[in-house]
C-alpha cells in the first residue's frame, strides 16, 4: 500500500512539481476556530467576502493564494490585530474560538492576543537580550518569579529548537542572531505565553532554504501542542507542513480541504490552476 501511494504521489509530483506527503488518515479533531459568513473591509475597500471556515484543534492549517487575496487579512482577524489599523470594519459574520465570539461583548482584545499568538513575516525580536525577549509576554503580565521565568525560557527555547544554539548567550541582544534564529526566537517568544493558537504570517519568506527547513521541522513538532494557522506563498511549504489547506482568491475562500486533496485533486479549477503554477 505504501508503494502504491508513493507511486501515485510521484506521478502527481511530475505533473504539479510539488511533493505531497504520503496520505495518512487524519480523522477529525474538535473544531477550535469557527468563521461564519465573515465580511471584512478596510474603509471603503472590501477585503474579505463571506468567509466560512472551521479550523480544527492541534492541526496545521495553511492559507494559500496569490498576493492581495485576503489570506493575511483573515489571519490578522483571528487575533484582532486588524483593530490597530484605521477604518477596518467587520461588516457581517463572526469568528468564534472555542465557541466564544471574539468580537463579542466583554471580550478583551488584549486577553485574546495572549491566547492567540502571532509570528510575523519579518522577524521582529525586540532590541533586548534573548532572555528578555522570551519572557516579554510574561513580564507584561506581571510575572517576576526568577526560577519560574528561567524554566519557561528554557522550555520555550527548547520548544523552538533554539536552546542549544543560544543557551550560552541568553543575555546577549536578540538582534545579534541570524535571520532564522531570530524567527525561531520570535516563535519561542510566542509559545512562552502558552497560547492555544499560533498564527504565522509567512514566517519563512525572508529566510534561506536551510533556515526555512528548520522552521518547517519546528512547525511539525509544535502541532502536537498548538493549533497553528500559517499563511504562505510557498506552495511546497503548504504541502510539506500543513494538514489542511484553504485557498483564497480575490477575498473569497475558493476551496478548503485536506492538503493532499487540494494539491492532488482540487475540486475547483481555479485552485488547480493556482497549485499547478499557471497563475499567481
Amino acid at each position, binding site marked *: 500500500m505504501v508503494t502504491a501511494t508513493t507511486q501515485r504521489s510521484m506521478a502527481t509530483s511530475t505533473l504539479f512539481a510539488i511533493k505531497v506527503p504520503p496520505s495518512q488518515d487524519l480523522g477529525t479533531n474538535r473544531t477550535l476556530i469557527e468563521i461564519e459568513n465573515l465580511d471584512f473591509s478596510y474603509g471603503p475597500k472590501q477585503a474579505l467576502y463571506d468567509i466560512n471556515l472551521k479550523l480544527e484543534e492541534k492541526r496545521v492549517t495553511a492559507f494559500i493564494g496569490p498576493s492581495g487575496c485576503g489570506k493575511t487579512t483573515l489571519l490578522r482577524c483571528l487575533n484582532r*490585530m486588524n483593530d*490597530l489599523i484605521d477604518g477596518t470594519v467587520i461588516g457581517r459574520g463572526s469568528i468564534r474560538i472555542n465557541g466564544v465570539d471574539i468580537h463579542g461583548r466583554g471580550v478583551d482584545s*488584549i486577553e485574546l*492576543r*495572549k491566547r492567540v499568538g502571532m509570528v510575523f513575516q*519579518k522577524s521582529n525580536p525586540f532590541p533586548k537580550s534573548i532572555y528578555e525577549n522570551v519572557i516579554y*509576554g510574561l*513580564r*507584561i503580565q506581571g510575572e517576576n518569579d526568577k526560577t519560574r521565568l528561567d524554566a519557561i525560557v528554557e522550555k520555550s527555547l527548547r520548544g523552538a529548537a533554539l536552546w542549544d544554539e543560544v543557551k550560552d548567550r541568553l543575555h546577549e541582544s536578540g538582534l545579534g542572531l541570524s535571520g532564522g534564529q531570530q524567527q525561531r526566537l520570535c516563535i519561542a517568544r510566542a509559545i512562552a505565553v502558552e497560547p492555544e493558537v499560533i498564527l504565522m504570517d509567512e514566517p519563512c519568506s525572508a529566510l534561506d532554504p536551510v533556515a526555512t527547513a528548520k522552521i518547517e521541522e519546528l512547525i511539525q513538532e509544535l502541532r502536537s501542542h498548538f493549533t497553528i494557522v500559517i499563511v504562505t506563498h510557498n506552495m511546497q511549504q503548504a504541502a510539506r507542513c500543513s494538514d489542511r489547506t484553504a485557498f483564497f482568491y480575490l477575498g473569497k475562500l475558493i476551496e478548503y480541504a485536506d492538503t493532499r486533496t487540494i494539491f492532488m485533486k482540487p475540486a475547483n479549477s481555479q485552485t488547480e490552476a493556482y497549485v499547478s503554477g499557471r497563475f499567481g
Partner: protein
Amino acid sequence: MSATAHPFATRSARGRQLERMTFTVFRVATYFVLLCGLLVFGDIFVKGAHTVFQSEFPYVNVPFLTEAPESLYVFEHNGKKMELGDRAFRAFQSSEAARARAENRPVPRFKAESYVYSAGGIWPCIVGTVLLVVGSMTIALTLGVSSAIYLNEYAKDGPGVRFIRLAVLNLAGVPSIVFGLFGFGLFVIFLDWNVSLLAGWFTLAFMVLPVIITASEEALKAVPKGFREGSLALGATKWQTIRTNVLPYALPGVLTSSILGIARVAGETAPIMFTAAYVVRDKLPWEVDRLGDFFFQGVMALPYHIYVVSSKIPQNEYTARVQYGTAFVFLFIVALIALASIVFRNRMRRIYKW
C-alpha cells in the same frame, strides 16, 4: 586626426568650462555663508575672551562669572587713571575722605564718569537663563512628548488629528515677539502673574512646543513597527507596548532633538522681554521670603542683558568689555548646546539602525 570624429569624444571645452564655473559659483556661495558665520563667532570669541579669560591664575575671570552687574566709575587720581566698580568706588571715596580728614586736607572730590552695568559680572543673568531654560523645557517636554505619543501611537487619522497637526505647523511659524505679546496678555495681565519666572516658562514652553512635538514624532516614527506589533501580539496593552517597547528606543532621539529646543529657548529674547526679564535685579532668585514667591519673581537673563548693554549704554572701551564678555558667555553656552545636539544626533544615527 580629428578628436571629434569618434562618437565618444569629450565634450566641447566651453561646455566643461561653463560647468566648472557654475560649480565654483555654488561652492563660493556655500563657503561665503560659512565665512560669515565664522566671522561672527570669531569676532565675539576673540574679543570676548579678553573679558572672560586672563593671563594669570586662575586664567578665568571668576568675578565676571560670579558677581552681579555694577556701574563702572572712571576717574583720574594722582595722575593715574582709575577704574572702579560701584562698591569699590564708594569704599575708595570714603577711605580717601577719612585719610584727608586725618591729614587735615580738604576732602577730595572725584569727578568720575560712570557707565552702568560695565563693572562686576553677569552671575544673576546666568542663573536666570538656566532657570528659564530648565522650567520651560520641563513643561515643553511633558506637553510635547505626550502630544507626539498621542499623534503617533494612538490617534487615528481623521479631521481631529489633521487639525492638531495644522495647529502645530502654524504654531511653528508664529514670530517669537507674538508669543511675547501673547504671554504678556495671558499670563502677565489676565492671570495676573506679573513679570515672573512662571510667565516666562509658559511663554517659552509654548514657543518651542512645535519643535518638540515634531522632533518627538520623528523619533517615535523611527522605532520599527515590528516592535509594536510583536508586543501587541503577545497580549501587551497599548500603554505597556509604548512604555516597554517604544519609548525606550525613541527617548534618545527625543532628547537629542530637544536639545535644539533648548538652544532656541536659551537664545530667544523677544518672548521674555515683557514676561520674565528684568533689566536689573539685586536679589538672586533663591533669596525669596516664601517658596511661592519663587515662581512669581522676574529674573535677569543673558539674552536680555545683551540687549540692554548693547542698546542702552554707549559704545566705548569701557562698555565693550561687558558687552563682549556677556555675548561670549552666552554664545558659548548656546553653541555648546547646539554642538552637543549635532554630535549626539550623528552618533544616534549610527547606533540606532534597525
